[in-house]
C-alpha cells in the first residue's frame, strides 16, 4: 500500500468521529462511575465545555521548551496511534495511514506520547510531576508486559504482524474471534488493559481525585486542553488495537461504537469495584497474576 492524498481527508474524518465519540464516551463513563458511587455525575456534554473553556483561556505560563512541547508530544502520540491502525475492517476509507507500519509500530508508538509528556512534565520542575512519572513508568514496565506477550501469542497464532490480516482471520463467526480461539492471550491482554486505563485499581499515577499530583500537575489552559483532547483519543486508539486483535475488529461504525464502549466499560467496571493499589503492589500484581497468563498464552500457541 502506498500513500495517497485522499488518505488525508479520510484520516481527518476518522479523527473527527473518534474525538466526538470519545468526548461523549468518557463523559458517559464518568457518569456511570458517579452513579455507582450514588452521585449524580457530570452532564454528558461536560467534556465539550471543559475543552472549549481551556482552549479559550488566554493567560498562561510556560516553564520552558520541553514543557511547552510536552502536550504536543502527548497528542501526537494519541493521534498517531489512532491513524497507524485501521479503524474499520474492510473499509479503505477508514484504514487511515496503516500503510506506514504494522502492529509493532502501534505497540511502540504507544510510548511516544507518554515519553514526550513525561519530559514536558519534568521541565516544570514540580516534584509531584516527577513522582507521577516515576510511578507511571514503574507501573507500565509490568502492566504492558502481558499485552506484549499476548500480541506475540496472536502474531504466532495468525503468523502475521499485520493488523488487517489479523482482523481478517477472525471474520466469519463470533467463534473465530481471538477471544475464543486464544482466550489465554485475551485474558492476559485485558488485565494489561486495566493497567493502562488510568482507572482504579491502577490510577495512582494520576491520582485524579487528590490534590494536584501526576505528570499534568503544572499544566493548565490550552496545554491541558491538548491533554484532554488526547485523553479522549488515546484510550479509543488503544481500544481499537484491542478490538482488532482480540474481538474481531469492526466493519461498521455502530459495531465499532458498541465494541469500544464494552471494552472501555470493562475497565470502568473493575475500577468501581476495586480500591487503588500502591505502585509496588500493582507491579507485583501484574507479575503474579497477569504475566503467567501471558506466558501460558505463548506456550500453548
Amino acid at each position, binding site marked *: 500500500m502506498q500513500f495517497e492524498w485522499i488518505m488525508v481527508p479520510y484520516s481527518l474524518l476518522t479523527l473527527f468521529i473518534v474525538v466526538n465519540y470519545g468526548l461523549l464516551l468518557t463523559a458517559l463513563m464518568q457518569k456511570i462511575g458517579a452513579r455507582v458511587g450514588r452521585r449524580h455525575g457530570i452532564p454528558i456534554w461536560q467534556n465539550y465545555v471543559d475543552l472549549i473553556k481551556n482552549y479559550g483561556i488566554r493567560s*498562561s505560563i510556560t516553564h520552558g521548551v520541553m514543557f511547552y512541547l510536552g502536550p504536543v508530544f502527548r497528542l501526537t502520540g494519541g493521534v498517531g496511534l489512532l491513524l497507524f491502525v485501521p479503524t474499520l475492517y474492510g473499509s479503505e476509507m477508514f484504514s487511515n495511514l496503516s500503510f506506514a507500519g504494522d502492529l509493532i509500530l502501534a505497540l511502540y508508538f504507544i510510548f511516544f506520547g507518554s515519553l514526550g509528556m513525561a519530559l514536558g512534565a519534568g521541565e516544570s520542575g514540580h516534584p509531584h510531576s*516527577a*513522582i507521577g512519572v516515576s510511578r507511571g513508568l*514503574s507501573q*507500565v514496565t509490568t502492566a504492558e508486559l502481558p499485552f506484549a506477550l499476548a500480541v506475540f501469542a496472536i502474531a504466532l497464532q495468525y503468523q502475521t504482524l499485520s493488523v488487517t490480516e489479523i482482523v481478517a482471520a477472525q471474520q466469519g463467526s463470533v467463534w473465530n474471534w481471538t477471544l475464543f480461539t486464544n482466550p489465554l492471550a485475551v485474558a492476559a491482554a485485558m488485565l494489561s488493559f486495566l493497567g493502562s486505563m488510568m482507572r482504579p485499581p491502577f490510577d495512582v499515577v494520576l491520582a485524579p481525585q487528590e490534590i494536584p499530583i501526576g505528570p499534568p500537575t503544572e499544566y493548565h489552559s490550552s496545554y491541558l486542553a491538548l491533554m484532554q483532547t488526547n485523553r479522549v483519543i488515546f484510550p479509543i486508539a488503544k481500544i481499537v488495537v484491542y478490538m482488532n486483535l482480540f474481538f474481531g475488529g469492526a466493519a461498521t461504525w455502530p459495531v465499532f461504537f458498541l465494541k469500544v464502549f464494552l471494552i472501555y466499560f470493562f475497565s470502568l467496571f473493575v475500577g468501581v469495584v476495586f480500591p487503588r493499589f500502591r505502585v509496588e503492589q500493582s*507491579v507485583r500484581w501484574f507479575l503474579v497474576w497477569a504475566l503467567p497468563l501471558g506466558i501460558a498464552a505463548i506456550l500453548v500457541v
Partner: protein
Amino acid sequence: MVSPIFIIAGSLGGAFLLGLLRDPWRGASYVISLLVLTFTTWLAGSWLWALSSGAVTPVEILTAGTQPPFAVNLRLGIAEAAMVLLINLTGLLSALYLKDTLFKQGRRAMAVLLIFSMALSGIVMTRDLFNLFVFFELTVISTGGLILLSRDPRALAAGFKYLVASQVVSILMLVGIIFAYHATGSLNLDDMAAASAALLRGGALAFFLVFIAVVAELKVFPANGWALDIYESAHPAFSALVSAAAGSASLVAIDKLLQIGGPAWMDVASIIGIVSFVGANLFALAQRVDRRLLGYSSVAQIGLILFVVGQQDILGERYLFVAGGVLLAHAVGKAGLFWLSGLVAGRDLTAWSALRGNPLLLFAFASFLALLIGLPPFPGFYAKWELVHAIAAHDHLLELALLLFGALVEAGYLYRWFGYAIKREIDHEPIAPSLYKRAVVCVAVLAGWLLAYVWGELSPHDNLLHAVPVLFALAFLALEWLPARVKNALAIAGLLGWFAFSYPAYDPLQLIFALIVLAGGALILLASFHSDGRRLGFYPSAMLMYAGLAMLIVAEDSFNFFAAWESLTIGSYFLILRGRQSEPHALSYLVFSLGGAFLILAGFALAAQGNVQFLLVSLAEVAEPLAPWVFALLAVGFMTKTAAIGLHIWLPGAHAEAETDVSPMVSGILLKAGLFGLFMLLMTMGRQELYGVDLAHVMMWIGALSALLGNLMAAFQEDAKRLLAYSSIGQMGYALFGLAMMNHLGWLMALMFVINHYIYKSMLFLSVGGVAKRTGTRAMYQMGGLITLMPLSFIAVLIGIIAMSGVPPLSGFGGRWIFYNAIMTSEYRLPMILIFVSGPIAFLYLFRLIHSIFLGQLKDEHRRVKEAPFWLVLPQMIYVVCLLVFALAPGLALRRVDAYISNFLPQGALSWEGLTITSEFGYWSPVSIMLIVGVIFVVIFAWLLFVNRRAQKVKQFNIVFAAERPYRPETTHYAWNFYAPYKKALGFLAWPVFERFWAAVTDLLHTLAELLRRIYTGNGQVYAIHLLAFVVVVYLLKEGL
C-alpha cells in the same frame, strides 16, 4: 673462530688476575672484570651468530687431549650458545649495575662475580655429570659470596640458609652421581643417555637423586623458602643474575638429565613444573614486597619452563622455539624488573608509583610485565601459543587448565602492581638518579623488543611487529613529545587512512564493523581535541586498541585473531586505567578479559588439534565430540567481552570511571569486538549440542538475562555514567539474544544493535561526560534543570534516549521491529519473556537519565554552568545527524548485510522495495512514519502556538505548591532513589549476586595464599626439612605412579 673454551678460561683467568692486583686498585679491577665479561659475552654472541647463520656447526671441545669419557668434554650448540650469551650478558649488565657496590667491596667480589658467570656457563656447556656437579658447587660458593653484596642485614641469614639447603642438594647429587657411575660405568652424559635403560632399571634411585638435586637447584615450589629469602634480601642486580642466569643454567642441566631419563621422567618434570607455576603464582597474590613478589614470580616462571622442558616429547622440533621463547622472555623480563627495583627506593609495591615521573622507565616496566605474561608481540606469546596447541592436541587438558589458570593469576598480580604504579600517590622518595643503572634497564627493554622481533621472525606466523596497525600504534611512543592535538590529528588520519586503504577488501559484515571501529573511532577522537598538554600514554594505548580491533576484523586464522584480541585487550586496559578512580576497575577488566582470552585460546587450541596455523573457517570442520566444547569455550570467551550476565561485573566500573572520551571508545566500540567474535563463531560453527542441550538456546537465555538484569540495574543507579554502563550490559544482551536466535532476522537485529548501540551510547557517554565535566559530579541527583544551560547536550541525550528506547520514529524502532519479526520464527519462546520484561525497563533508566540531569530544578551552584566544550559537542551533533539518517534509511547500512547474511541463513531475508521494508510477517516504512509523525506534530504544535502564543516564561520556583512553598532546589528536585516503589517491588532482582560470587572467589584465592605462604617460616632448618620432604614426596609419588 675463537674456541668457546675461552668463555671458561677467560673468566677463570680474569678471576686469577684480579687476585694478583693490589686491593686499592679498584678501578683497574673493575675494568678488568668488565673486559672479561665483555669478552665472554662477545665470544658467546659471535658463536650464536655463527651457529644460527649456519656458518659453523655445533662444536665439541675436548679437554686434556683425551676422548670422553676419560676426560671432560664441553659442547656448544645453538641453544647452549644462546644460554651462555644470556648468562654472560646478564653478568656484564649486572656488573655495570653493581658498579658502586663492586667498587666498595673490591676485587674479591669482582672475582666471585666472574666465577659465578663462569660456573653457570660451565653448567650449560659441560657434557660430564661430575663436571656438572663441580660447576654447581662453584655456583653455590659464588652465590654465597655474592649474596653478601647486599646492604640488607637479612642477606647474611639468607645466605646461610642457602648454604644449608645447598649442602643437602649437593649431598643428594653426589650420592646420585656415585651410584649412577656405578650403574653405567661412565660419567659422560651422552654415554649415560645411551645406557639409560640400564641406569633407569637398576639405578633408578641414583638417577632420581641427581635429577631431584638439579630440580631443587631450580628453587621449585614449595621447597624454596631459602631462595625466596635470597630474592628478597640480596642486591637486586644479583637477584637478576640468580633469576635469569642461574635459573636458565639449571634448566639446561635438567634438560640434559632428561636426555637420560626419557619420557617417564619428563612427566615428573612436567608435574613439578606445573605445580610450581600454579603454586608460586598463587602465593604471589599475597605479597606486598616487590622483590619477594618477583621471587615468587621467578619460581613460577622457572616452573613453567620446567613444564615446557618436560613436554619436549610432544613439542618435537618446536621444543627449542617454545622453551627458548618462555625462558628468554622470563630472563629479560625478570632481570629487567629486578634492575628496575634497584631504582625504586621503597620496597612496598605501591612505592613503584615513583616511576610515574619517568615515562621511559614506566614503559620499561610495562614491557617487562608484558614479557613475563607473554603478551603479544613478545616471545612468550608465540611460545605459549605453540605450547598450548601442543598440549591441547595431546589431550593434556588438566595441564592446559592449570597453565591458563596460573597465567591468569600471574597477570592479575602483576597488573595490580602496575595499577599501583600508575594510580597510587607518588612516593615521596624519588627514583635513584644513577644513569648507568637506567642504561642497564634500557638495554633490557631493547633486548626484550629485539627478542619480540626475532621470535616473530622465527614463528610460522606473520611477525606481529610487521603489522602496520601495530607499528602505527607503537610509533606514537616515539611521538610522545608532540602536543596532544597534533597526535590526535595524526591518529584520526591514521584510522581513516587505514579504513580507506582496507575498504576494498572488506565483506559487508567486516565493513559494518570496520566503519564502527575505524570511522567511528575517528569520530570519537574528535572529542579528544578537547584535551591539551601532551596526554602521555593515551595515544599509544588507544591506537593499540584500535590496531587490535582493525586486525581482528580481517583476521583469517586463529593466531592473528587471537593476537589482535590480546592487543586490543591490553590497549584498552591501559586506556581504562587512565581514569581518575579506575585502578580496581581496570584490573577487574583486565582479569576478566584475559580470562576470556585464555578460554578463547583453549578453544582455538582444542579445535586446531596441533595445527598452529588454523584458519577460522576450519572451525566449521571441527567434529564431535570436540566441537561443542570448542564452541562453549569460544562463546564464553567472547561473552566476557560483551559483559554477559555473570561475567559483567568489570563493566560498570571500567566504563564509568574511564575518561570522558575513553568511555565512548570502550563502550561504543570495544564491546563490539565480542559481538564480532560471536558472529564469526556462529557463522562457522553454527548450532552445537552439549549433552543434548542446544548451546544457542543457552546463549539466548544468557542474552535475555543480561538484557533484563542490565536494564534493571541501570534503573537503580545514581551515577549517570554507571547507568549508561549498566545499560550497555542490557544492550549487549539484546544483541547476544539476536545472534543466538540463529535466524536471519536475529542476526540482522544484532547488527542493527551493533550500529545503533555504537551511535547512541557513544553520544550519550560524551554528553554525560560533558555535563560531568561542567558540573563536577556524576551523581544525577546533584544536577537538574540544565536544559537551558546545556541545550545541545540535552538534544543529544533526548535523541539518544528516544533512539535507545525503540520508540518510533527513530532508529531504535527498527531494531525492535526486526526483533519481533525474528522471534516469530525462533524455536524457543520462553527466553522471549525476559526480553519482553526488560524492554519497558529501559524507559525507567532513560527517563531518569534525562530528567535528573536536564529537567527538574536547577541547583544554585550550577547557575553559571556553560554548555559542554565544543569538541565534546561536535561529535554529539554528528551522531544526532547519523541517528536521523540511519532512522530514515536503515537500508543504507543493512541492505547489503541482509544479502550477505543470506549466504549463511537464506530463510527470512527482508524485502527492501521502495520506502517500505517488508518481512514475511509485517512491514515498516521508516520515511512514512517519520513524515506522518512529523506532520501531526507540526500541526498540533502550530495549533498550540496559535491558541497559546503569549505564554509567559516564569521562574524556577513559580509552581503550584499546595499551600507550601518550595524550600530550595535540592529538596524540590525529585531525583534521588527515583524509582523507590519499583525498587521495593523488584529491587531484589538487582542484588549483587555475581559481584559477591566473584568477590568470594578472589577472597578465597587471597586467603589461601595468605594462609599457605606461612609455611615459609624464615627458619633455615624448616627449609631444609621442606627440601627433604619434597624429595621424599616426589620419590614416593614417582614410584607409586
